[in-house]
């Protein structure tokens, strides 16, 4: 699927997750956040940086991982991204939704 975000045509899946991370920009992240009723602050971006870092190292994301991240505690993570914080933060970060498979 294609979607126009921040004046650019971006490929996304049915749920709205970017399917090609190379298309991601900060503006796109900002727009997606707005659609989720989140207005991004420096604190939000610190979390997104952490998520990108994990993504690049191909390390799985989990709530437990957040607890040990040293970046943020889970309580604050929920405040910044209310609802499903991992799902929302990964959507804003332009990476696939974490698979809590298994």
């Amino acid at each position: 699927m294609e979607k126009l975000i921040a004046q650019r045509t971006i490929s996304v899946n049915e749920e709205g997750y970017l399917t090609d991370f190379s298309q991601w920009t900060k503006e796109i992240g900002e727009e997606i956040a707005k659609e989720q009723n989140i207005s991004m602050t420096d604190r939000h971006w610190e979390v997104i940086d952490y998520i990108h870092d994990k993504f690049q190292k191909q390390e799985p994301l989990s709530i437990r991982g957040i607890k040990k991240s040293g970046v943020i505690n889970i309580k604050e993570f929920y405040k910044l991204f209310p609802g499903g914080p991992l799902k929302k933060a990964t959507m804003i970060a332009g990476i696939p939704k974490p698979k809590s498979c298994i």
Partner: protein
Amino acid sequence: MKHLVILGAGTSGTMMVNHLIGKLPKKEWKITIVDQYKTHYYQPGFLFLPFDIYTTKQVKKDGRKFIPKEANYIQKKIELILPKENLVKLEGGEELPYDILIVATGTNIAPDEIEGMDGPGWYKDIFDFYTYEGAKALRNKLREWKGGKLVVHITEMPIKCPIAPLEFVFLADSYFKNKGMRDKVDITFVTPLSGAFTKPRATKALHYLLEEKNIKEVTDFNIERVDYENKKIIDYADTEVAYDLLVTVPTNMGDALLERSGMGDELNHIPTHKATLQTLDHENIFAIGDATNLPTSKAGSVAHFEAEILTENILHYIKGEPLKEEFDGHANCFIETGNGKALLIDFNYTHEPVEGTFPFPGVGPLQLLKESRANHMGKMAFKWVYWNMLLKGTHIPFVSANMSTKGKHFEEMES
């Protein structure tokens, strides 16, 4: 004389010793297997124990019965693995040098990971059924329980046999119906996932069961703490679920041995090669079953498939040949749905649970993703197969280590 040491005599360790004993040349290799307990527990039976479907006797047997006499069987706690020195230290100071090590120490519950879980309420109105002690204590509680809010809860993934909590809910529904008190029990299933099952396709196929049995569902619930005084569980988003009886599956973690030995990940599971079962850090150390960090289900059936592939790879390793990258994450599980019915699912690293029949393509007898009595008989027969075939490493006819795609209706999983 060379020495192969197996740590853990649970499902995986026992299968490995039975596989290897006849395959390693006796003049060159000695095999030792170590476990802390004399008893071998049939863990799948812990699901049935609380409901008086199985007796305690049916879920435990003397471990020695399943270990070949030619193997050296030690009943002691393992203290430490020193991978650089190729040495294992046991309780009391005994040392076991090895040429090849197989880690099969499984995974277990860690209720102390969550505030308030194993506090004053533990085994009073908070129970697990993933241990023998928990399942038995819960059985005694259920025998006299007068009803109220039953909350069945998963703390965090991954857990072994990930569908067992859902099966517990279905069996609870039947149990209370049979006791003529279903109207006095309110059942809620609470999960950190966004659906009742971990795989989207299975969630779709299973959801009707929850509706049909009038079971409430709370999803995306990441528990922060148990408020045992006011009897509720609270998550990070401040959602609260009240209980009279909480049956939880606590965080599952590998044995603390792996943390002590510096070999585990954040949940003490060992980083292991997905397809060869060699550990990522040490070439003469292999891992199998629940102890690994592999992204497939932690289940006895998976360990069974792994054991066949690991046996071949140990033989390749000894001969200095390249290892076979064969394991595909194949899992199959019976899912008890209550009232004497069950369904069967089959999946691997890349294929979602499928609809179709198993193990005879197109014929059955066991139906994947469809409720049936035959599947329930299959699940019950699994106990016999477990004690009499699986542990002994006997090849189970018609069931292959790699997943067969015949007779199944497929849809590739999106990655």
